[in-house]
């Protein structure tokens, strides 16, 4: 029995890498959705929410259709450059990003909605550009909601199972994240290993929920 350390650190690495993609993209998209009304905004909203509702196996299937070795993008990529992302660490990261980015965008949108537009207007009249206003006024004011969203999104990425199983495979030493390893250990009848991994993930989840509820309470206090 090889240790539980590899799957644990792999899961953390995948979730952190996913977060590194999600935070910038999610902040911008969340802000745009909260502040700007444009044609087709509803469509973007629907597309953002969709992965939250789609079953992970459906998401995994789409990922294979698009990025598999014979996929819409994955096909040419493999033919021309010999690069293929399926069954790799990056496949796990992509799966995690797709399923948890929507969560963060929704939280960011709500957090930015809670920022008084007057504050931003004042910053603009004082000579701050739109980027500076965003970075120095909107983000700092909304930070608790943003952190809460990031925490939840990190937990979702850590817990990704279905799309990862389909798209990243379950390759020991490469893509066997915690959740996949629990499944394999259970399938193989290695209950001791499954139970140890389950305990670790339960502890992580409890910590996330506690952090999240604390942030929410602080946010409510802020508003009062």
């Amino acid at each position, binding site marked *: 029995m090889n240790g539980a350390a590899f799957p644990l650190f792999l899961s953390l690495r995948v979730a952190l890498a996913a977060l590194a993609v999600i935070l910038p993209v999610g902040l911008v998209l969340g802000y745009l959705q909260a502040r700007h009304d444009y044609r087709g905004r509803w469509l973007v909203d629907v597309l953002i929410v969709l992965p939250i509702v789609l079953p992970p196996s459906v998401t995994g299937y789409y990922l*294979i259709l698009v990025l*598999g*070795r*014979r996929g819409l993008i994955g096909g040419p990529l493999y033919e021309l450059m010999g690069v*293929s992302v*399926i*069954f790799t660490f990056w496949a796990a990261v992509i799966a995690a990003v797709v399923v948890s980015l929507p969560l963060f965008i929704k939280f960011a949108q709500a957090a930015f909605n809670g920022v008084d537009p007057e504050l931003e207007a004042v910053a603009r009249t004082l000579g701050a550009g739109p980027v500076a206003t965003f970075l120095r006024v909107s983000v700092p004011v909304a930070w608790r909601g943003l952190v809460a969203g990031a925490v939840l999104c990190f937990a979702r990425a850590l817990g990704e199972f279905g799309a990862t199983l389909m798209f990243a*495979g*379950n*390759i*020991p030493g490469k893509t066997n994240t915690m959740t996949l390893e629990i499944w*394999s250990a*259970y*399938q*193989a*009848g*290695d209950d001791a290993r499954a139970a140890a991994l389950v305990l670790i993930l339960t502890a992580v989840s409890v910590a996330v929920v506690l952090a999240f509820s604390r942030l929410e309470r602080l946010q409510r206090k802020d508003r009062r």
Partner: protein
Amino acid sequence: MSRGLAFLLVLVGAACSFNESSERDELVVSAAASLREVMTAAALSFKETHPSLSVQLNFASSGALRQQIELGSPAEVFVSASTEHVDRLVESGLVASADRRIFARNELVLVTTKEDIRSLEDLEDDAVTRVAIGDPRSVPAGKYSLQWLEAEGLWERIQEKAVLGGDVRQVLSYLERGEVDAGIVYATDAKLVGLEPVWIASGPNAPAVEYEAALVGGSREPRAIARQFFDYLGSDEAIRELEAAGFIAP
């Protein structure tokens, strides 16, 4: 409020109505994934003499099926792709040692979609980046593949390239979709999808692939209908069907 309650009751009622099949005469058979077609055919033939019977077939890796049986799955007949999983059920008292029988044999083959792979050794080439086998921890085909590669002294270099399937048919589907360069499956699986094996396990390094059928009993005596099906699997008719699908008679 009361309307909401009524709605809930309707939901619960609907959920329960989907679950009344226990009334019918039903036999649950759990079989290794590689047996999907032959077991489906065997169940159909068996039904000809038992028209009121409904045979529910459940296919997965033998390891996963064994685990389900240990946790109380309703399977009454288990056909495993390896004797090892039946051994474990005998040990845990779920199968009587008299109620097991070698059902069929099979061969392990290397299949590929690339023309430059012509032998098992070719898997070591740097041009080959992904080789699919079943997960050795729960998929017998994977365990046999691992034994084979180890005995041939190739595992160390192929390990890096291994992509593990949840059952042997997943290995096949990875290959058909072109996600992997090569895979190790049973001869019968390759035949099924019309893939010509490039290498067949033979000689002293080839693992013996033996399917074993078992009657699941535990504390209760296996039902007569389960025993009839178990006996049918050893009949001449069933063996003819097996051989037609490319299996080797026990």
